[in-house]
Structure formats: C-alpha cells, structure tokens
C-alpha cells in the first residue's frame, strides 16, 4: 500500500497530484473488500459506510469488523481499532511541517491522513509537491474508498454463505498485506511481529475477543525499551 514511496522522488506538484490520484483510485477499490467483510461481520450497510466516511482508515475499520464478527467485547474492539489508528497520528507529526495547515484547512487535512496520502506526500522533494500529492491522494482515495465500501456492502448482502466466497480470509489477508512492507524493514520488526502473534494467540483462550490484539501491542513496548535495538524508520542509532 505504500508502493508510491518506492519510486524515484518527483517534485512537480502536477505530477505529484496525478500520482496521488492514480494511487487513490487503485487502492480505493479495496473498499469493496471492506464493505463485504463489514456486512459479513454483522455491521449494517449504513454502519460500514459511516466507518469509511468518518473513520477513513482501512486497518482500523477491518479491525472493528473483525471484533464484531468475533462477538467479543465491543470496547476491546474499539480500543484495538483506535490503537491501530495511532500510526496516523505519527504520520500527522511528520506531515505537519509540510502541510502547514491552520484552522479549517487543518481540520480537513487531518481527515485525509492515511498510509497512502502520507507515502505520496513524503516521497516529494518540495513542500508544494508534497501538498499537491497529499490533496490528490486524499480526494481520489476518499471518493473511491467510500463508493467501493457501499458497493461491497450492498453486494455482500446478496451473497449466500460468506465463507463459500472466502470472505472470512479477506480480513487477515488485508492485515498481512499492510504488515508485509514493515517486515522487510529489519529484524526488530520481524521480532515484534512474531512476539505480537504469540501474545495474541496465547491470550485468546483467556480473554474476551478483541483484547488479545490490544495485548499484542506490548510486544512493541518490549522492543522499544530494549537497549541496543536499531531505530526504526529514521535510520539513526538510538
């Protein structure tokens, strides 16, 4: 989902906006998968659409749908979903200096922060191109993601058994796809991922559904406090 960051950096605002629009169109179609998974999980079409309109962050939306399907504590489900959205806060910290938005523009720009808009903005060489890329991605991804959610939610209701279409694999496959680029980054990431899996699976028999995923976050705490682990993302030694 962050392939845009892999390409050569570009600096023309027009080109950045166009790249963002294309990426938004491509990635936004996965809203089909979310809409279908949400309705299969027991959310209504309206609830699936409100999540895409207002939460507008794929991983958290899939996480809430998964918690609803598991039939566990909704509070734990919300906690897991919001915790997963914390990375958008980090993106915001990195984007603040580039977007330089105040007042209403900032309130709008905040809503547009996703993996994709951040990747496009941070791949640009100039702040003007970063802003154009961010806006282009936001506009096209928001529109596509929401229309696709509606289509997927309406379509899923007409299917017979969700499992016969493999819809129960959509959630875990989506998480794996989001996790994959992080696993390439280094040993620390792979260790944290393994520990997160072990913690979540180990806690499953003893906790209401949803809570094991929240507990998995302690794997990140352990790795961050461990001395000598390399810094992630910045490449600077701690």
């Amino acid at each position: 989902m962050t392939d845009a960051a892999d390409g050569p950096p570009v600096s023309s605002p027009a080109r950045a906006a166009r790249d963002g629009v294309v990426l938004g169109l491509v990635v936004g179609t996965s809203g089909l998968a979310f809409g279908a998974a949400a309705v299969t999980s027991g959310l209504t079409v309206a609830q699936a659409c409100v999540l895409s309109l207002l939460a507008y962050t794929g991983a958290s939306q899939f996480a809430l749908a998964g918690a609803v399907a598991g039939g566990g504590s909704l509070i734990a489900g919300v906690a897991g979903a919001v915790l997963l959205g914390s990375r958008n806060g980090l993106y915001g910290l990195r984007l603040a200096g580039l977007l330089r938005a105040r007042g209403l523009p900032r309130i709008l720009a905040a809503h547009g922060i996703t993996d994709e808009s951040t990747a496009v903005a941070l791949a640009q060489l100039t702040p003007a191109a970063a802003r154009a890329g961010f806006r282009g991605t936001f506009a096209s991804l928001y529109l596509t993601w929401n229309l696709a959610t509606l289509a997927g939610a309406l379509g899923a209701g007409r299917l017979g058994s969700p499992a016969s279409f493999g819809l129960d694999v959509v959630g875990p496959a989506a998480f794996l796809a989001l996790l994959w680029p992080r696993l390439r980054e280094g040993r620390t990431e792979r260790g944290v991922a393994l520990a997160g899996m072990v913690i979540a699976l180990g806690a499953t028999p003893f906790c209401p559904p949803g809570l094991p995923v929240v507990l998995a976050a302690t794997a990140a705490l352990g790795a961050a406090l461990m001395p000598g682990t390399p810094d992630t993302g910045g490449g600077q030694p701690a």
Partner: protein
Amino acid sequence: MTGLWMAVLATAVGCYALKLAGLTVPQRVLASPRARRFAGLVPVALLAGLTAVEALGHAQSLSVDPARLAGLGAAIIALALRAPFLVVILAAAGTAAALRALGIG
C-alpha cells in the same frame, strides 16, 4: 442507539482525534528515540496480532481451518511477488473459496 452504532462512532471519533492530534501537537513529543521507536512498532505488533487471531482464532479458542490457511498462503505468495493489494485479497479469498467448493476445509 445500539452498542454497535456506539462502537462505530467511537472508532470514528478516536481515529480522527489521533489524526488531528498528530497535526496539532508540538513536534518535540517524539523527540525521545524510545518514544519514536515504540510509536513506529505499535502497528507492527497490532497487525501481526490481528492476522494471527483472525487466521487461527475462533471466538475464545484456536482452531485450524485448512481453506482459510491456504488462502493466507496464497496471500503470502502474492505479496512475495509484489502483487498489488487487491490482487493479494482476491488470491486469498479465491483460494479459500475454491478449496471449499472442492469440499476441503
């Protein structure tokens, strides 16, 4: 209002608040390398936990569903081949659906 609607709205409010907080709080919040490292690793731990629980969890127990695991295997192959997101999802769902149509899983 039902509990489900409250969960939907709480998720939406929480996710938006975090985005806005990121644009609003002073940059020095992440000055400490440890805080930055923790913040960067949280999604890794959560996504891994989610993948594992949704692949093997069944309410409060663990169970093996061959078709679901094969679907995830197909997703891994698609990811290793650098397939786009939607192709990964389609490969996973299609594999599980095909195996179930054949009576496996």
